């Protein structure tokens, strides 16, 4: 590095990266057993496990209103028994993929928030960039056009497969949306396929609308937002896991449409939509 290359900002950036690296190592020295709760407050833990095994909020409310004696409800429900793939029925949420059940069931509200983060950032992109002019790209050659036309349908198919199988195998709505958006990017650069931004926005906002509508319907069926009210089916089958399948498909569509809107907006500016 030459003398003139050195400046304070770079130095601090280096320092920042170094410190973060050290921080990454520091939890190794901490005893993270993740369950310090039970050492001090055994009382809470017991009662939480009761609630956990009881699951339904309405039932707990009923019990709380009757009396505070929990001893009758000690029996563990079905979900805690051994799960057999392809046979077990009516589990808590019939997902074979644990991550999906956490992302969309236990922490569904956070996922909704992440969806909105993506939605609002693309919305902001279209608001800010709507006044800017177009950028010019090279014309694609014959080989590129043919190849891209051959490949893109398969990419979209892969995306659809990933979001449909989000509850069975790794993946889910977000990577599926990203793959679909990559396909549209290829079609945009490779064969000058002009999709309309307004149609994609329609898909996007409708998908978001239905996600929240399905979540809100949980208020009336289970008594809480994002509650799982459809039958969960058999583990390992495609049509299992009730709401998770539907919501993940909607999420996949939404993310795909959103990212495509963002790419198109950055590629052309939004004005050419109204041709």
């Amino acid at each position, binding site marked *: 590095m030459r003398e003139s290359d050195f400046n304070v900002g770079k130095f601090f950036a280096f320092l920042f*990266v170094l410190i973060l690296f050290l921080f990454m190592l520091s939890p190794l020295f901490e005893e993270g057993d993740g369950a310090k709760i039970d050492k001090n407050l055994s009382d809470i833990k017991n009662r939480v496990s009761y609630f956990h095994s009881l699951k339904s909020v309405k039932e707990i409310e009923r019990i709380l209103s009757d009396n505070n004696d929990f001893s009758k409800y000690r029996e563990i429900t079905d979900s805690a028994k051994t799960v057999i793939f392809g046979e077990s029925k009516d589990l808590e949420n019939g997902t074979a993929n644990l*991550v999906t059940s956490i992302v969309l069931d236990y922490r569904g509200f956070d996922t909704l928030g992440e969806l909105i983060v993506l939605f609002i950032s693309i919305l902001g992109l279209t608001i800010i960039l709507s006044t800017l002019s177009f950028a010019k790209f090279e014309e694609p050659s014959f080989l590129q056009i043919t190849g891209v036309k051959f490949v893109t349908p398969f990419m979209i198919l892969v995306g659809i497969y990933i979001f449909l199988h989000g509850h069975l195998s790794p993946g889910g709505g977000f990577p599926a949306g*990203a793959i679909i958006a990559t396909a549209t990017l290829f079609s945009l650069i490779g064969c000058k396929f002009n999709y309309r931004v307004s149609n994609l926005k329609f898909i996007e906002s409708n998908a978001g609308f239905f996600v929240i509508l399905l979540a809100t319907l949980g208020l009336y069926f289970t008594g809480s937002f994002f509650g799982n009210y459809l039958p969960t089916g058999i583990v390992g089958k495609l049509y299992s896991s009730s709401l998770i399948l539907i919501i993940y498909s909607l999420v996949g569509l939404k993310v795909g449409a959103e990212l495509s809107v963002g790419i198109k907006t950055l*590629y052309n500016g939004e004005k050419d939509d109204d041709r």
Partner: protein
Amino acid sequence: MIFWIFIFIFILSIISSIVSITAKDLLYSVLSLSLLSLLTSILFFILNAPDVAITEAAVGAALTTVIFIFGIRRTEREDK
């Protein structure tokens, strides 16, 4: 064996992040960022998190790179 692969990829990812900070051309730093996220996705896969690995590979390595490059195209490149 896996442990040494892990360490190797870890060091590579740190190097690529440092390159992305110090590179003069913005395009280089974007490319090294994409390399970083590819390496990170491999790390996630080794750490038994295939979901995160797929997402990281699709979003970090492919889409953000493209978005960054589109963004750089829109600006005037002074640091050539």
